[in-house]
């Protein structure tokens, strides 16, 4: 997990082109750029929320007792959390940028999973092959296909469903919900209503042994992928012009337009990328569960909403922390107190909202 980074400014570089990471909503002071004046307000890195996940992991250890079980559960929790992050990251930006909450986001997840099935099943020989290269290839192909289709559908969805009801929250909720119902039914019509089983590619199966603990290989892959996505997002948000626009737009869309940028176009792009990410998450989730139904969208919906509320609508880092917390919580309580698993996440949400009513990293609003 990364936090804010300091960027030292090279002396010859243009001041306008250097930036510091503000994923967490604050920056650390660069020592070389400005004449060091005493009494400068020290920009504090808001690290408290970042400590929550490690804290939870620490708390769980004594409760679980066995180190190896703890490790297995933790990795499982992190993997699940990463997948949830991938799926929700687009949603939180879409909301932050344009105040649009897509209750139908789950549809892209389901779609991604089914597209993956359409890729993986015909290419079963590649899946079963003992070659890492072939396995990776078919895995990558499934992901790319899922993202592409979900992204395109995202564009269509935005145009047809979302655009006509900008600013009308009630209608947005209703329409996007309706969209999800229609999407779920369409999936059932096209692929059939039965559960489809997905098998992991051969090299992804099994577990690695770390001492006493058996860590499933696939979960490690999910964690790595999730980290890659997170880092990529941070990079884009903090080092590119588009990222700058998104961050500014999340805070004050009007002002960005008054500076001459078409935020609408940006939004459409973000929406499509968010849908694509959801599609990717669908693939990961489907392989994690090893089977898919049309209803996975609706199932994950609740978790996603909890995550983005915890994280703060519009904040990527908050979404990341929230997702990890939810993933860890679900796995720990699934082991310790199975009866209250889902409740634990709601309890988590309530506790966090009591602490920070706007979420972990509230985006400064206009």
């Amino acid at each position, binding site marked *: 997990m990364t936090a804010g980074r300091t960027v030292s400014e090279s002396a010859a570089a243009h001041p306008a082109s250097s930036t510091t990471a503000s994923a967490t909503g604050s920056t650390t002071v660069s020592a070389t750029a400005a004449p060091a004046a005493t009494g400068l307000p020290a920009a504090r890195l808001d690290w408290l929320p970042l400590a929550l996940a490690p804290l939870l992991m620490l708390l769980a250890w004594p409760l679980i007792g066995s180190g190896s079980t703890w490790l297995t559960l933790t990795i499982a929790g992190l993997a699940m959390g990463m997948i949830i992050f991938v799926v929700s990251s687009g949603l939180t930006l879409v*909301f932050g940028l344009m105040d649009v*909450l897509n*209750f139908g986001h789950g549809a892209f997840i389901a779609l991604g999973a089914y597209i993956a099935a359409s890729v993986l099943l015909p290419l079963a020989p590649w899946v079963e092959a003992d070659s890492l290269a072939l396995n990776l290839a078919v895995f990558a192909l499934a992901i790319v296909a899922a993202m592409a289709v979900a992204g395109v559908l995202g564009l269509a969805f935005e145009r047809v*469903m979302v655009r*006509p*009801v900008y600013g009308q*929250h*009630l*209608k947005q*909720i*209703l*329409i996007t*919900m*309706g*969209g999800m*119902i*229609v999407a779920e*039914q*369409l999936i*059932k*019509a*096209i692929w*059939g*209503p039965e559960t489809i089983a997905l098998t992991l590619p051969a090299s992804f199966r099994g577990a690695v042994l770390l001492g006493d603990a058996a860590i499933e290989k696939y979960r490690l892959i999910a964690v790595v992928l999730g980290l890659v996505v997170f880092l990529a997002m941070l990079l884009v948000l903090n080092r590119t012009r588009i990222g700058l626009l998104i961050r500014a737009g999340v805070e004050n869309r009007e002002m960005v337009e008054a500076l001459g940028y078409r935020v609408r176009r940006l939004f459409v792009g973000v929406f499509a990328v968010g849908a694509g990410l959801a599609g990717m998450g669908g693939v990961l989730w489907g392989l994690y569960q090893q089977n898919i139904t049309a209803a996975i969208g*609706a199932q994950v*919906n*609740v978790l996603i*909403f*909890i995550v983005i*509320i915890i994280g703060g609508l519009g904040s990527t880092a908050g979404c990341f922390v929230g997702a990890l917390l939810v993933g860890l919580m679900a796995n720990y309580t699934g082991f310790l107190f199975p*009866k*209250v*698993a*889902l*409740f634990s*996440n*709601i309890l988590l*949400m*309530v506790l966090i909202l009591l602490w920070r*009513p706007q979420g972990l990293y509230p985006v400064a609003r206009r």
Partner: protein
Amino acid sequence: MIRLLSGDTPRSRTLTVLLLLLLLALVCTPFLIPGARALNMAAKICIFVVLVASYDLLLGYTGIVSFAHTMFFGIGGYGVAIAMTRFEPGWGALLAGIVGALAVSMLLALVIGLFSLRVRAIFFAMITLAVATAFATLVSQLSAWTGGEDGLSFKVPALLTPGFALEDADGEVREWLGVPLNGKLFSYYLVLAGAAVLFLLLLRVVNSPFGRVLQAIRENDFRAEAIGYRTVVYRTVSTVLSAAFATLAGVLMAIWLRYNGPDTSLSFEIMVDILLIVVIGGMGTMYGAVIGTVLFLLAQTYLQDVMKLASEATAALPLLSSLLHPDRWLLWLGLLFVLSVYYFPQGIVGRLRALR
């Protein structure tokens, strides 16, 4: 009559006619159409009218989207079911179950309302979704009390059981117009009368000064707050009332089915159905709940039969046939729902009223 309707008349000739016809049909169903299927449909219509109307209070009149409505419906059903299983299944137990369910519902609604109504609509919707899902999970976990996935079957007071019947001097079951006067009949009329009373009460609520303030808040909560109405209070009261009526609908449902389970009361499908009905019927009209429910339930049964024929007829084109498969009826209703939100936000009732 107008007093009975609290001054909220249908305001459309077609609508009035439809409503009267419906009322007549419901009252006479046992005599018009023999058989259990029709009676079941009629009872379900009565119950859902109340359920949807109570949701209209929340969505149409107060402007709040909540996904927890089925939770309150379920609490009503389970309240009765649990009371009738744990205690002697008599009228006392029934009353106890009803009161208990109402208490739980209203308290829960109060907590949800106070906690969540301070946040934006979208937060509220998401939180209700989470809470409802958690509740459903809880119910299936506490299977010792709730029967888990299988639900609870229970006995109802003797008067309402199918075995009970009015007998004449010879021990024969009395009949009237060819219909045996048994517990099923009494059950049905209890449900019908209960639903009617609850619906009229809802009309009373939305046409009272309270209801008018609700509508003002829905239109422009800023201004309402500025005038001096504590919007949070009104919204919370509305949430609690809506929950109470939904609970009572659940009670009726349990009494009719003599059973309650997660699939009949808590499933997300029911929540979706409620949403579809209230939007297609017409938000903020109350009568929309009536018309919408009838349309929806009739479609659910008979449309599927039609679709079955169509699907078989188009078997040559697999995709089309798949789209027309009766199990996919929700697809078409979903489309209708989306179109309604765009083009007929006033729903069927609104359309009828506009046509006069």
